[in-house]
Structure formats: structure tokens, C-alpha cells
């Protein structure tokens, strides 16, 4: 990899709008957002409730499309992608972590982590091997056969993180990953995410809490669908 490649923009948004029309009223959940996120950045998106954070994350995660504007993911225009290509991008480029974990309730931890690999056509034995390694990596080597409802909240979120990362995606997107956890467990999860960042993972995270945002190197504040501020900060304890 050339030195310039490490600085390459993974995400580039240019004047992106997401508009909802409800009963004749037009609402711009995103109102002209432009931003660039480079490889290995650790970004927090903050803002008051309803400011458009989740809307932005869904667009970044290829779950939703911008109404207007351009979104380049690793240099490819997402606006030009068809349904199948979007699914492929979600599978290979993006790892999504949700506030409410969103694990498959009837599948064990291991099967949850194996699921994204099914859509890559990886054979069963190989899937098992990769997924159990990913679970061991988040410290759940001894919980592989547990169903989600047999795990604690923190453990569930670890499973979700390991599922998001099992396919080695370019970006980890986390929408309030600690929103359903107590403060101690939140810190544990943040420790894990910090670790991932140190290993080179690009991370974009939505949060309400200043404590959590402190972990990140860059904080983007949204207000009414617009970028109100975009600041870098040096993080305590990290270089």
C-alpha cells in the first residue's frame, strides 16, 4: 500500500439531503451534509435527538439512499448502485452495530457471527472457523453455543461487534452501541472498540454521551440535519 493510500477517503459525502414528506410537509432530516472520512479515523457523531444522526448512519451503511447529493464509498458512487450491489456493499464494506443489538434470536452466538459469511459463499467449515476466531477475539470463546437470550447485554453487544467485523469490512458503523448498557459495561465495550481502532479499523459511532465521545479523535456535531461543528481532539491515553 502506498503512503497516500493510507490517507485515502473511505467515505466522501457531498451536499447530501435526506428528505421525508409527511402530509404535504417536507422535512430535511439531512440538510446538505458534506464530509470526508479517511481510513483508520475514529469519529463520533453527536447531536440532539432528531438532529439526523441515525439517518446519516443509515445512508453511510447503504441501508438507505440519499434523496439528493453524492455519496462515494471507497471511491464508488453509491447512488449508481442497484439493490444487489447495495447488498454486496453492506456485506463486504460495512459492519453495522445497533443500539438494540439486533441479533438473530433463534441462532446461537456462533451462528449469528457466521451469518454474514453465508452471503459470501464461504463453505460451512470455513465459516465456522472464521466465526469462532472472531468470537474468541472479543472474549466470547466460551459462549459460542449460547442463544442471545442466554447472554448479558454486554455479551450480546460483543457478539454483534464480532458479527459486524467478521467479514473484515472497511468501516464499522455503530449507532449508540452503548445506549442500552450500564456505565461499567459501556466502558468495557468502549475499551474493545478502542482496541479495534488501534488495530487499524475505521470507526464511526453515534453517541449521546460526552464520556463516550471522549474516546474518539474527531467529533462531528449535527444540528437540524446540518454539520454544526467538526473538531479533532487528542485523546487521553492514546497517541
Amino acid at each position, binding site marked *: 500500500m502506498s503512503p497516500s493510500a493510507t490517507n485515502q477517503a473511505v467515505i466522501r459525502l457531498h451536499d447530501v439531503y435526506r428528505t421525508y414528506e409527511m402530509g404535504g410537509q417536507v422535512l430535511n432530516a439531512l440538510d446538505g451534509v458534506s464530509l470526508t472520512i479517511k481510513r483508520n479515523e475514529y469519529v463520533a457523531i453527536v447531536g440532539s435527538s432528531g438532529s439526523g444522526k441515525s439517518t446519516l448512519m*443509515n445512508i453511510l*451503511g447503504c*441501508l*438507505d439512499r440519499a434523496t439528493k447529493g453524492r455519496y462515494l464509498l471507497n471511491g464508488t458512487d453509491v447512488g449508481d448502485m442497484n*439493490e*444487489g450491489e447495495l*447488498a*454486496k456493499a*453492506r*456485506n*463486504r464494506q460495512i459492519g*453495522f452495530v*445497533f443500539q438494540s443489538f*439486533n*441479533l*438473530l*434470536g*433463534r441462532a446461537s452466538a456462533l451462528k449469528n457471527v457466521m*451469518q*454474514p459469511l*453465508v*452471503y*459470501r*459463499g*464461504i*463453505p460451512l467449515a470455513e465459516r465456522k472457523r472464521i466465526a469462532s476466531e472472531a468470537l474468541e477475539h472479543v472474549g466470547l470463546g466460551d459462549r459460542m453455543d449460547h442463544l442471545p437470550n442466554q447472554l448479558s447485554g454486554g455479551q450480546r453487544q460483543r457478539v454483534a461487534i464480532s*458479527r459486524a467485523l467478521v*467479514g473484515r469490512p472497511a468501516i464499522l458503523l455503530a449507532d449508540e452501541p452503548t445506549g442500552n448498557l450500564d456505565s461499567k459495561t459501556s466502558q468495557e465495550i468502549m475499551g474493545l472498540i478502542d482496541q479495534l481502532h488501534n488495530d487499524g479499523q475505521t470507526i464511526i459511532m453515534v453517541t449521546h454521551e460526552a464520556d463516550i465521545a471522549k474516546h474518539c479523535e474527531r467529533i462531528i456535531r449535527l444540528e437540524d440535519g446540518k454539520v454544526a461543528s467538526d473538531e479533532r481532539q487528542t485523546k487521553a491515553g492514546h497517541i
Partner: protein
Amino acid sequence: MNTIFESFRSAFESIRAHGFRSLLTSLGIIIGVTSVIAVVSIVQGLSYTINAQFAGLGGNSLTVRSHTPFKQQLRGKLAKLNDNDMQAISRQIDGISHITPILFTQTGRQGAISYRSQTAFSRVIGIGPSYLQVNGVYPQEGRFFTRDDNSRRRLVCAVGADVIDNLEIPKPAIGEFFMLGDEWCKIVGVIERRGEILGFSQDDYVLLPYGTARRIMGTTRDLDIQIQLLVDDMNRLEEVKSRIRRVLRKEHKLKAGQADDFRVQTAEQLTESFNAVLNTITAVSAGIVGISLLVGGIGIMNIMLVSVTERTREIGILKALGATRQDILLQFLIEALTLSMIGGLVGIAIGYGLGALVASLLPGFPSAFVPLWAIFLSFGFCAAVGIIFGILPAAKASQLDPIDALRYE
């Protein structure tokens, strides 16, 4: 390939997770397939039995039997053939080599036979001397009836080999007496063994001289006989047939507009007419089965729609993890398919069991036999039902918007 296999696995899991609901859902399919397999196995059994009955009849034989048109049946008038009819045929028509009356005794007391402590039931048939040639059966031991036996109405008989076995008559059986109804009957001949056809014995019958049979059955009653004959020249079969018709119409004093009260049939037609009835039964039951499979399919569609709604969030998660529309479509389609095919398998098993049960309850009925085509056909039908009625719910699932699906409570 990978995703198809995965879809089958997850289909089995979700069917097992809702065991009772899945059973209820596939009940329509189960009932449909059960009835088609049971009906087919019974019809097949009947058809083998009937074909076996006529197996001995040569291609140049004709059988004349009484036939009551439906209208007459309603009025309670039954058509009959009697000795005079036979006399008329043999006197007025040439080109006939052998002719014999056949009198089937009524079942019940007259079919009861016994020897010492052994009791059994058998088919008792009164026949003329030409019966052997027409039906191609010959005595293996002893002799056949003489004209004297017939005219003196002697109580002598020729029996199928199974009668000897069933009554445990010591061999050689020639000359032994056994009880036929209330009368002592002497065995003068044993007919050569024809064997079994699919479990149906071809050797369980007692042949009596026609005159004797009439005496046993009581001359007072107006008996209905069948007439069998052989035509010399195979090519003149149709011609002889129409001449028999003319003779009998005259004999029965039928007017120009009246329908025949008898039927003249070739060996082929005999089996054909029975097979036609069986085919009708099969067709009617196929129709009923079609309706029940349709109902079963609607049941599957209904449950699959419920299932899609229940699992909206799961679908959203799968899409977020990278499932394409086709992946989701395939998963739900395969689930519907699996549901209907499991129903089909259970139906085939139960239907086969029912057919075997019926076969074992009816004496002289061949053991259950389900042809491979019936199994493949019902299986194919189930698969088609699963796909046709699974496509709508599966399409609905695949079209869900990932964000809406993830937000679904």
C-alpha cells in the same frame, strides 16, 4: 448452492421451532396426498384382481351377460339370461365352436364348504362341458364332468388346488367327499394350479356340473346365467357379436326403440369396461385431491404470510448483514416448499398404510401396491403447491425495506 443449502437448514429450523403450527399448516396437504395414495393403491388392487379373473379367457371368446338399463333398475325390473337364450344362440348361430352356461352361486350358505373339522368358503360355479376349452383350464388329476354327470345332476365336482389345501383333504383327493352347503359332493378332478396374482389366489373355486348347480340352487327360482362361447374365426368376432344381439333381441321380444337388456363382450372389453369404471373412480378422487391440495396450499400461504410479518425484524437484520432480495426470496420459498414436501411425505406414508389396511381387511384382495408414478406425481404436486403458494409471501419478504424492517416492533 451454499445459500440454497443454508435456506433448507434454516427452513427445517423454523419448521421445528413451530412444530404444532407446521403440522396444522400441512394438514391439508397431508390429507390430500393420503387420499390420493390410498385410492390409487386400492384401485390398483381392484384392477389386478379383475384382470386376473379374466386372464384365462382367450382372445376369441365372447361373454354374454344380462344388463339392466338404469331406468329399469329404478323400477326394480332385473334383466336375466336363461337356458332358452343359450339354446337359441347355439341353435341359430354357426361359427361357434364351444358354448357353456356359467352359473355363479349366491355367496353365503352355498359357498360354505367343509371336510371333517375344516370349514372354508369358496366360489362355487356351475358350468357346462365347454367351460374348460373357453377358459383354458384343465384337470391335473382325475377327470372332468361327463354328459351323464350333468344330465343326472350328480354331486361331483372339480376343484382348484387351494380347496384341497384349505380343507386339508388328504392326497390323492380324487374320490373324497366333502360338504358343499348341505350336500355331500365327490371330488372327481383337481384343476391345474394357476398360482397367485399379487396375493390373489387363482385356485380357490369349486366347479359343479351346470345341472347339479341348478339343482342345488333350486330350480324354482328364475336364475340369471352368463353364457361364454368361442368363435371359430377370430376375424368374424364382430359379426358373431351382432348376430347374437339380433337373436337375443328377438328372444327377449325387444321393440325397435328399446335398449338391449344384455351385453355381448370380448375378453378385452370385459377388462376394459371394469378398468373404465376404475379410471372414473381415480379421476373423481384426483379432482377431490386437487381441491384439497389447493386448500392446503392456501393454508401454507396464510402461515407463510404470518411468518413473514413475525420475522420482519429478522429480515431487516439479514438485509443489513448483506442478504440480497434473492437470498430472502429463496429462504422463504424453500421454507414453503419444505413445509409442503414434508406434508407430502407424511401423506404418502399414511396413504400407503391405509391402502395396506384396506387390503388386509378385504379377503382375496391383493396386498397394497402403490406404483412409483403415483408417488412421484403426488410429490411433484406438493412441490408445485409449495412453490406456487410460497412465492407471494416470499416476494413480500424480499421486497421489505431494510430500515422499515429493522424498525418493526
